[in-house]
């Protein structure tokens, strides 16, 4: 039975997550991408867009881009499958938005007698849910490429499909070791088990983290794995024929996928909202001078802030990789996926199993 407070709680959480991802991270990533590249290449970067003379170190450029592209002509090329051409950006952006639903962004807090767990849906199969939803994005890409009636688009879509398939397999297998370690597929449970700093994923599963991050970048089609949209070979890959808002939708989807995959990474390897050596209940006790509700609210804010800081750092790490490495050739991308990461992740499963059975790894 759904009561009114539960309903309000869920609505607030959904609003918060959508605000965080689409309202905060999507423009911020656009800004980080510009500004971080500028810093890394010793340039100034975008700093002209201003509201009433305030430029706020170029933050308004994302807003200016969005407004500009909204008012651009919406264009469907001759011979394209009109309905599918319109549907493709929607199929790309919706999975990117809903994949965040199972990722916990805070602990359990008791506010005015109402117990709140900061996750929209605590599914028992949270890990599988994220993988399933993330793989739906492949449909958007393939449909976009097919419906455009354009050679570049189709080539980009084929490359994207093969690449995303390959890395999805490897990505699933890199997580198996963690699941063996935590004995759960629920992201909430995995985060709770990382309350002890010595049980964080990054400490016992560092090789898996490297493999997972590589797969994640490839799955999101980011540089150095951006062969599906390589602008010097394929113009813009599968979204060559998209303009205006539909073009933004593909970019939003890509940025949101970065956010989601980084959030999954934070949850699995970096303890989500947990602060090293500090438990949630310990934090609430420490803040006890604010009164029971105040302490819970303050602990909640700190937890969410820690989660966001970890998430942002991980996104900036991916951006650094993006501006450091050159693009792989397509055969190198596939070779890396099938001949290196896949066997390496199978070997890692064996090592984790042996480690747990011999007692080298602690039983969590």
């Amino acid at each position: 039975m759904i009561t009114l407070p539960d309903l309000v709680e869920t609505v607030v959480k959904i609003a918060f997550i959508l605000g965080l991802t689409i309202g905060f991270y999507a423009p911020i990533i656009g800004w980080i991408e510009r500004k971080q590249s500028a810093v890394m290449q010793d340039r100034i970067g975008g700093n002209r867009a201003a509201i009433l003379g305030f430029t706020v170190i170029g933050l308004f450029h994302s807003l200016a881009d969005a407004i500009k592209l909204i008012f651009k002509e919406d264009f469907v090329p001759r011979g394209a499958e009109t309905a599918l051409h319109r549907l493709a950006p929607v199929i790309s952006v919706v999975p990117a938005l809903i994949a965040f639903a199972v990722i916990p962004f805070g602990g359990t807090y008791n506010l005015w007698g109402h117990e709140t767990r900061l996750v929209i849906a605590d599914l028992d199969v949270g890990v599988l849910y994220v993988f399933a939803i993330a793989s739906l994005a492949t449909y958007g890409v393939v449909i976009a490429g097919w419906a455009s009636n354009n050679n570049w688009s189709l080539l980009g879509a084929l490359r994207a499909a093969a690449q995303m398939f390959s890395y999805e397999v490897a990505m699933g297998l890199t997580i198996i070791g963690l699941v063996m370690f935590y004995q759960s597929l629920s992201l909430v449970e995995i985060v709770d088990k990382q309350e002890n700093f010595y049980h964080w994923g990054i400490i016992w599963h560092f090789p898996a983290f490297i493999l997972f991050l590589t797969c994640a970048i490839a799955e999101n089609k980011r540089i150095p794995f951006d062969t599906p949209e390589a602008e010097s070979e394929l113009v813009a890959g599968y979204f060559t024929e998209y303009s205006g808002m539909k073009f933004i939708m593909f970019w939003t989807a890509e940025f949101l996928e970065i956010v989601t995959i980084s959030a999954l990474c934070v949850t699995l390897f970096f303890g989500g909202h947990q602060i090293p050596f500090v438990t949630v209940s310990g934090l609430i006790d420490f803040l006890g001078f604010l009164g029971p509700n105040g302490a819970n609210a303050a602990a909640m804010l700190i937890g969410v802030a820690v989660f966001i800081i970890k998430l942002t750092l991980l996104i900036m790490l991916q951006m650094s990789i993006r501006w450091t490495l050159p693009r792989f050739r397509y055969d190198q991308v596939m070779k890396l996926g099938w001949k290196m990461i896949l066997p390496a992740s199978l070997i890692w499963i064996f090592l984790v199993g042996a480690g747990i059975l011999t007692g080298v790894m602690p039983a969590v």
Partner: protein
Amino acid sequence: MGAVAVGIAGAMLMLSEFLGPKHFFREKMEPFECGENQIVSPKQRYSVRFYLIAMFFIIFDIEAVFLFPWAVIFQQLGMFGFIEMMIFILLLGVGLIYVWKKGALEWE
């Protein structure tokens, strides 16, 4: 959450449909091909390697599907479950080596 997401996506699509100029003429509606008219249609046969990759994906993803439930109860199964699953992974490893040696993972 899904409904809200679809709503946002739909709103974004509608915005671009209604705002923005619309001027159509024949040359502009051509699919982009570096300024040329389209020489070959994209609706034709393409490399068989993409099908092969899709088939390998199914095989290895099913492997992953078997591994997930095993991984959850791994610590209860103990040594028996570990050896059983390593035999399974070994068989798939042999499959991967076979595919590899046959040259199905090569792109030239």
